[in-house]
């Protein structure tokens, strides 16, 4: 099969997923080019996982078009899956088997020869730093180790496309950074990554390009930088007021920056220069308990686009 170098690895047009009367994914369009890392960012329930499961060819498409590696999931599911690596949101490891058995049996599902599997298992254990735990039962591993094992498992068939559904949710910061490092290395090797996350730092670290999903639809698309430029100001002034004070600030905040966002626990002022806004606030007699100036992040983009914070 011939593929031109520019042919997208993934192409969706009007892609839709319905469960009974509920539309989980509502006519979304996107393309992912070979070698790219692409992210779905959005709160829980936005439809990220449903989109991922269709891409992984484990969930039938309800409507629209989807092409994965140039093939149609409806007819070529097993052939597509043979070239995918999948890290599902919840681990599906075999608790009764050892770490290395989990990898080798998974390799067998791809019908890989045993000696090839043996080589790859050794390399992958090394890659995810689990060599010392090779003979341990999976049950005894920590959450971060299980996640690393799931990632190693998804690489056993040397996939062309790696799908990661919330790869680091629920992990401690150390475990997350180790995982990010491993994923970054894969990206450097040219593996195409598609991931979902509700962490903006994860999206900023790993994604070349991303779409923001909310209520089953794509509400914005671009690189993390583009999204911030388009949908937020350069800087943000965050102010926290004593309990009760924030509600009495009617009007006092108007015009401090390009835009003011009131969150339950703090006020965000979007401005090109946060320090200027802070001085202006002080001049108006505002005395927040805490105030800080930071660069705009994807969280701000998300707030702007949906009026809600990401981890709802």
């Amino acid at each position, binding site marked *: 099969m011939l593929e031109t170098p520019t042919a997208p690895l993934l192409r969706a047009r009007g892609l839709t997923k319905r469960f009974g009367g509920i539309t989980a994914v509502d006519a979304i369009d996107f393309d992912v080019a070979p070698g790219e890392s692409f992210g779905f960012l959005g709160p829980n329930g936005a439809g990220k996982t449903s989109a991922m499961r269709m891409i992984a060819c484990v969930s039938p498409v309800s409507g629209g078009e989807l092409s994965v590696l140039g093939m149609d999931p409806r007819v070529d599911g097993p052939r597509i899956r043979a070239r995918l690596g999948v890290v599902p949101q919840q681990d*599906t490891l*075999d608790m*009764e088997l050892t770490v290395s*058995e989990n990898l080798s049996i998974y390799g*067998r*599902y791809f019908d890989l020869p045993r000696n090839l599997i043996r080589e790859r298992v050794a390399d992958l254990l090394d890659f995810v730093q689990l060599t010392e735990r090779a003979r341990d039962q999976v049950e005894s591993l920590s959450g971060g180790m299980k996640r690393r094992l799931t990632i190693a498992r998804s690489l056993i068939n040397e996939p062309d496309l790696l799908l990661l559904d919330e790869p680091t949710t629920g992990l401690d910061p150390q475990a997350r950074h180790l995982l990010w490092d491993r994923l970054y290395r894969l990206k450097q090797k040219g593996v195409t990554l598609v991931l979902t996350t509700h962490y903006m730092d994860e999206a900023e670290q790993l994604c070349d390009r991303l779409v923001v999903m909310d209520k089953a639809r794509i509400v914005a698309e671009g690189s993390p930088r583009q999204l911030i430029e388009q949908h937020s100001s350069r800087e943000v002034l965050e102010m926290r007021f004593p309990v009760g004070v924030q509600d009495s600030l009617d009007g006092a905040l108007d015009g401090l920056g390009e835009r003011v966002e009131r969150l339950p626990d703090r006020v965000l002022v979007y401005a090109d220069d946060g320090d200027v806004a802070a001085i202006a606030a002080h001049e108006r007699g505002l005395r927040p308990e805490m105030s800080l100036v930071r660069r705009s992040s994807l969280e701000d983009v998300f707030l702007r686009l949906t009026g809600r914070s990401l981890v709802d």
Partner: protein
Amino acid sequence: MATPPALLVLEHELLLYRRVWRGSIVSSFLNPVLFLAAMGVGLGSYVSQHAGTAGASTGGTAAALGGVSYLVFIAPGLLASTAMQAAAGESTFPIIGGIVWDRTFLGMLTTPIRVHDVLLGKIAYICLRLTLVCSVFFVVMLLFGATHGPQAILAVPAAVLTGLAFTTPIVAYSATQKDATGFNALFRFGVIPLFLFSGTFFPIAQLPGLLQALALATPLWHGVDLCRTLALGTADAPGVLIHVTYLGAIAAGGLLLAERAFRRRLEL
């Protein structure tokens, strides 16, 4: 030279079994030893005494048992019942485990393996387990002298078929469950009554009319009668054909239901 994907699923099951095979074989051996000792030898000697006194005038128990000792009478029935119980065990918890607990089936489905392959691989594994359990049971029958001629070995494949007729419908049922609570009812109101009233311990001719008709319709009775007539050498072609067809039809119907249940549960 691609390996059929269902065989790769079977490979997974055998890898799991490798961890427990010793214990599994010991219990496959002890179970018939205990039952044949208690029911066949213990209760059996009492039944035979009774047959000796009452039997002279009425043709009594010995005739009702087909002229063999109670041990020889119940052994093939217990074999069929054991196959049913083993099938029920393998078709309940491991299925819901693969779907809900460890979700290993979901892991398989992110590879070229399809839902259909998972089901077939799982059933192939249960068939192997049943063959093992029934073969060990038969060895114990030999040790107890509970067989009646060499043709008795035919009861082993008959028992495997009986187990299969329970496997596929129970797998279908398990695949619709959210947790294990439904299994209690299955065992309490399904497996145990069948075990007690399907001709394993006494001929169903002893049951009142209505219950007798009910027993005749149960797959376990067909399995018990098939195993027993084959083991005692009293089987005739039409009888065997009816039993095999009946059990085969249930197994096949169950497979269709199981396939549907698996798809509904795993192809969301």
